[in-house]
Each structure stands twice: as structure tokens, then as C-alpha cells.
């Protein structure tokens, strides 16, 4: 056989193998409203940048008649490529090959590309579309999952790990995405659960559809397992490419710096926040008024909306924003918002992204359901995350900062580097109504006209304590600033913090209230 012939054979083999499960299976994949694994990789990566490995991998299953079966690529595609010109590693499960089921070789391919990602310190993107463990391979399939989980954990905080759920991801398989940093889901395509509707029906007699049990909306709005929601796959990959342009690609490297742009949102920042502390507004307008081009990448936009977290750039550099959102649940801290914020803060700290916090909250959410859901343990996470973080921490108190909420939201006392307050700030142990009712209980009760007295005492309390100056007098607030000065103050403070070197107490690791 001459060289030319051998090259022809290679190309023929490539062509056949790259068809995955074959034309029929591809047709079926399309009919179920999904793209193929190869189309997905093309959408993710820069055009023509993909290099595939282990195309000719074959499974070694011997039982249940598997030895005669050829599974192209063993149901997963792995390789390297670039996104916005930067190198990344990717794997994509191919549902057309044996339902994307995970056997030993399938898992070995995934762990191979994970090792490359960690060794080369480049991001890993995993596209999940699999029926689960390949039952015929038994315990080997379980071993495969375990080895993936181990590597997810080793890579955590070193390289960004992104999971894209584009099909079923059920049983043990869900735990790899759960261990990664960002989970992307697509409406009507993504399905994630530990036990599916069938089992739930048999055992518990409860009937529920896959969509209602673990669809994209459920995980974006209720469980918080997903971080980004997209209407379709095309939009999903655009979002991933955008996120990758904002975050550092490993824990020793800064995010790509962009040209500085002025905020695009033309609102009068001095007028965004209503004076009455019980009136809502959208805190994202404040964020967009201070960041470059008003370009904000919100993480977990649909989950626990009472806190807003995400990335923006200030003077071309990426900053992580955490802001109470008075528009939802008055911006309170509760079980979900504490979890959401704490995780985001830890991510920023791991990847050296400075944290800017905008404060406007009445405190923790009262209620039996919150107490029983463990608001003590969950609420503690945000305190832990802020206290532990050594990245630059800059806090701006916009309006209310009451009680435990004030302490938790990156206060001076948790070692914030710079704390600013707007003139509308009210830093106090609680709101004027509640405080006056307690402090002046006797005067109010004994007054001839208790309502009149109550009003008078609330006004008195407001006058004396509902302002930023009591805290400023003690140095808890470094400076009271006009809202319109905020962007410049942030630019300046971030510059001052650029070489921050906080010495940590030596330890193996802490015990956060997981």
C-alpha cells in the first residue's frame, strides 16, 4: 500500500468515525431539537481551531454482546481549540453513539482532556448530552465518573470549568457539572436530575414531567444549579464565549484587559435610588452606571434575584459585583441569596478578581421557613466568604445597611479595603420604625396620643441615626461620596489596591459552613 493509499484510508476512517452514530441517529438528534456534538463544538470555538484527539478510541466492553459492537469515538469527542483567540479544552458527549452513555474508554477520554486543561492551565468546557452510565460496562462506568469528579475537584479554583447541559444529564452524571464553576442550560433541551420521573412515579406515586422536575427553568429559577439560561443552543455558546472574555483563564493570570469605555447607560446616577428606604429600584442601573460600556455579565440572573452578582469592567479590567437588589424581596439576605453570593465571592477570590459590593438591604429575611431552612448556616457563608477573601474589596453603601445585613455585606469589620457611603446611606442597627418602637416604647405607650408620639420619635431617630455620618465618625466609612463620584472612586481605589498583599494565617484550609 503506497503512502497516498494510506492517507486515503486515514481520511476514509476519519470520515466514517466522525459520523458518530450514523445518519439515522443524527436525524433523530435533530428531530429532538438538538444540535450534534460536532456542531456544538463549532459554535463554541473559533472557526477552524478545533484539534481532536482519540477519534479512533474503542471501548473494551466484553459482556452482554458488547464485544462485537463498534461505538465511534466511544460516544464522546475531545480536543483543544481557541475561544476569542485563547486556548481551551473541550469535551462533547455524542448522544448519537449509544445515547452518549459513559463507559470506561468514554471516561478515559474525558479525564485525558481534563488533565491537559489542568496541566496547561487553560479553561475546560464540558458539553453534556448522555443517557448516563453504560450499564453493560458495570462498575467500570462508575469508576469513570469517580475519576472525573476527582479531577473536577483538583482543577477547582485553578482553571475555570464550564458545564453545558444540552440533553439529559441524570443520576451520578449530574455531579460533574455540580462540581464545576458555571452550568449553562438551554430551554427545553437541558434535563438534570438524580432520579428521573419514572422512578419517582414507581416509588412515590408522584407524576411529574422531565421539564418540571429538572428542566432549564427549574434549575435557573428554583434550585440554583444552573448559572446561565439560554433560549437556544446558539445563544448559549455566545454567552459562554462572552463569559470567557470576562474571566481569567487560570488563577495566576489576569483576565484580558480591554480598552476603557465610558458607561453607556445615560441615567442620572444621583437620582436612581429613591430616598424612601422602603421603595424599590433596580440596582443593576447603579452597576451599569459605573462600568465600562454598561456591559454587565450577570451570573444566576433568574435565581435568588434579591442579590445580583456578575462581572463588569472598570477601566478595562474585570471586577466582580455583588449588590443587594431592592426590586426583589426588598434585597434581603436569605438562604438562597447567601449561597449565591458566597459562591461568587469565593470564585472571585480564587481567580484574583477584585470585588465591589453595593449595599442596600433591610437585613436577613425573618420567618419560620427561613429559620428551618437553615438561614443561620447558609447566612454564615457570606460572612465566611467575605472575611476569607484577600482580593481587593471595595464597598459602597447606597441606602439601607441595617443590623446583621450591614455587617455581612463586606463591611469594614470583615476587612473591606475601602468603604464608601452615599449621602442616602442609613447605617444603623435597624430601620427607624422598628428602632423607635423599641427604644421609645415607654414614651409612646404613656403618651396622650401614642400615634403622634411614635411619629415624632421615628423622625427623631431618623434625624440622628439614619445617615452615614454616625459610621463615618467612627471611621467605619472612609468617605461619604456623591453617587456621581462613584465610578472615579472605584477606579482610584482599584488602582490603590493593585498590589494588595494580605498575609493569610497559615493553615491547610478553613472549614466554611458548607
Amino acid at each position, binding site marked *: 500500500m503506497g503512502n497516498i493509499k494510506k492517507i486515503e484510508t486515514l481520511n476514509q476512517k476519519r470520515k466514517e468515525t466522525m459520523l458518530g452514530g450514523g445518519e439515522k441517529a443524527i436525524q433523530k438528534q435533530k428531530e429532538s431539537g438538538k444540535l450534534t456534538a460536532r456542531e456544538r463544538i463549532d459554535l463554541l470555538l473559533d472557526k477552524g481551531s478545533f484539534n481532536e484527539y482519540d477519534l479512533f478510541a474503542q471501548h473494551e466492553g466484553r459482556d452482554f454482546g458488547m464485544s462485537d459492537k463498534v461505538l465511534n469515538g466511544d460516544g464522546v469527542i475531545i480536543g483543544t481549540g481557541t475561544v476569542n483567540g485563547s486556548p481551551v479544552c473541550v469535551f462533547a458527549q455524542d448522544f448519537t453513539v449509544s445515547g452518549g452513555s459513559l463507559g470506561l474508554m468514554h471516561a478515559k477520554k474525558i479525564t485525558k482532556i481534563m488533565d491537559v486543561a489542568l496541566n496547561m492551565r487553560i479553561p475546560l468546557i464540558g458539553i453534556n448530552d448522555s443517557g448516563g452510565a453504560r450499564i453493560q460496562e458495570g462498575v467500570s462506568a462508575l469508576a469513570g465518573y469517580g475519576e472525573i469528579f476527582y479531577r473536577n475537584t483538583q482543577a477547582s479554583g485553578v482553571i475555570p470549568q464550564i458545564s453545558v447541559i444540552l440533553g439529559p444529564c441524570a443520576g451520578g452524571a449530574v455531579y460533574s457539572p455540580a462540581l464545576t464553576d458555571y452550568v449553562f442550560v438551554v430551554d427545553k433541551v437541558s434535563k438534570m436530575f438524580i432520579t428521573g420521573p419514572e422512578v419517582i412515579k414507581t*416509588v*412515590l*406515586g*408522584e407524576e411529574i414531567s422531565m421539564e418540571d422536575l429538572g428542566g432549564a427553568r427549574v434549575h435557573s*429559577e*428554583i*434550585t*440554583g444549579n444552573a448559572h446561565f439560561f439560554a433560549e437556544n443552543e446558539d445563544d448559549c455558546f455566545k454567552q459562554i464565549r462572552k463569559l470567557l472574555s470576562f474571566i481569567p483563564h487560570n488563577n495566576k493570570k489576569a483576565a484580558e484587559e480591554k480598552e476603557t469605555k465610558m458607561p453607556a447607560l445615560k441615567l442620572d446616577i444621583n437620582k436612581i435610588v429613591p430616598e424612601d*428606604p*422602603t*421603595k*424599590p429600584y433596580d440596582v443593576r442601573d447603579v452597576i451599569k452606571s459605573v462600568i465600562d460600556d454598561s456591559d454587565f455579565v450577570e451570573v444566576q440572573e*433568574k*435565581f*435568588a*434575584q*434579591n442579590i445580583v452578582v456578575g462581572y463588569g469592567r472598570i477601566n478595562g479590567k474585570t471586577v466582580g459585583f455583588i449588590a443587594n437588589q*431592592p*426590586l*426583589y*424581596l*426588598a*434585597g*434581603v439576605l*436569605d438562604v*438562597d441569596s447567601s449561597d449565591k453570593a458566597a459562591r461568587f465571592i469565593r470564585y472571585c477570590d480564587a481567580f484574583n478578581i477584585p470585588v465591589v459590593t453595593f449595599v442596600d438591604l*433591610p*437585613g436577613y*429575611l*425573618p*420567618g*419560620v*421557613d427561613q429559620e*428551618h*431552612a437553615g438561614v443561620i448556616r447558609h447566612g454564615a457563608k457570606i460572612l465566611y466568604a467575605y472575611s476569607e477573601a484577600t482580593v481587593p474589596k471595595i464597598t459602597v453603601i447606597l441606602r439601607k445597611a*441595617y*443590623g446583621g445585613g450591614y455587617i455581612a455585606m463586606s463591611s469594614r469589620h470583615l476587612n473591606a479595603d475601602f468603604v464608601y457611603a452615599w449621602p442616602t446611606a442609613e447605617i444603623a442597627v*435597624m*430601620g*427607624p*420604625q*422598628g*428602632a423607635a*418602637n423599641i427604644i421609645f416604647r415607654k414614651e409612646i405607650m404613656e403618651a396622650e396620643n401614642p400615634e403622634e408620639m411614635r411619629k415624632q420619635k421615628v423622625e427623631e431617630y431618623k434625624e440622628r441615626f439614619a445617615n452615614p455620618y454616625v459610621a463615618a465618625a467612627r471611621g467605619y466609612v472612609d468617605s461619604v461620596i456623591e453617587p456621581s463620584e462613584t465610578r472615579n472612586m472605584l477606579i482610584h481605589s482599584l488602582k490603590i489596591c493593585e498590589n494588595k498583599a494580605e498575609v493569610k494565617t497559615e493553615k491547610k484550609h478553613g472549614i466554611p459552613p458548607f
Partner: protein
Amino acid sequence: MDENKKIIIKIDDSEYTTFSTPSYEKKEKWKKPDSRNILAIIPGTVVDIFVKEGDKVKAGDNMLVIEAMKMNNQILFEKDGIVDKIFVSKGDVISKGQILSVLK
């Protein structure tokens, strides 16, 4: 956003007008337990009932058996009383927290 969907949250005597979130709405609101009600501690299928309405029972008596996850779970009376009503029968598939019977 639909302005009509705004709710009011009361914290420290102040009332905040605000929107709700899906996960907040989904949380089960706490109800004061009534010790006369016998509730299912797990979901499953009723395979046996040992009492009928009007029976006098003592704390610790077996009320019924629920099969769940291939295990038979006995539901016992927690206090003395007279069975006022039984809401389930043999073979019923029940959900967690469902009321099974009430004592007088």
C-alpha cells in the same frame, strides 16, 4: 414586570414593596402541627390498616403500614384517643405529609 405582582415584606415594623422570587414562592410555609392529626412521614402505598373509625387507641398502637422503597413502615399513634376519621384505604398511594387519620 407586572406591577400587580408586587408583595409587601415586613421587617422591623417597616413595610417594603417588592417583587417575589420563584424560589421564595416555592418554599413551604410553616404550619403549626396539630397532634390529633396523623400524617404520612413518607410517601408510599398503604398495605395494611389495623384500626377503624370509633376505635379506642393508645399511644404506640399500630395504625397502618406504608410500603415505600420496598420497606414496610409502621405508622404508630403518638397519643391516646378515639379514631375519629380514617382518610385512606388499603392500596392507596399517598404522598408525604398527607393526612391519614384524625383523633378525637
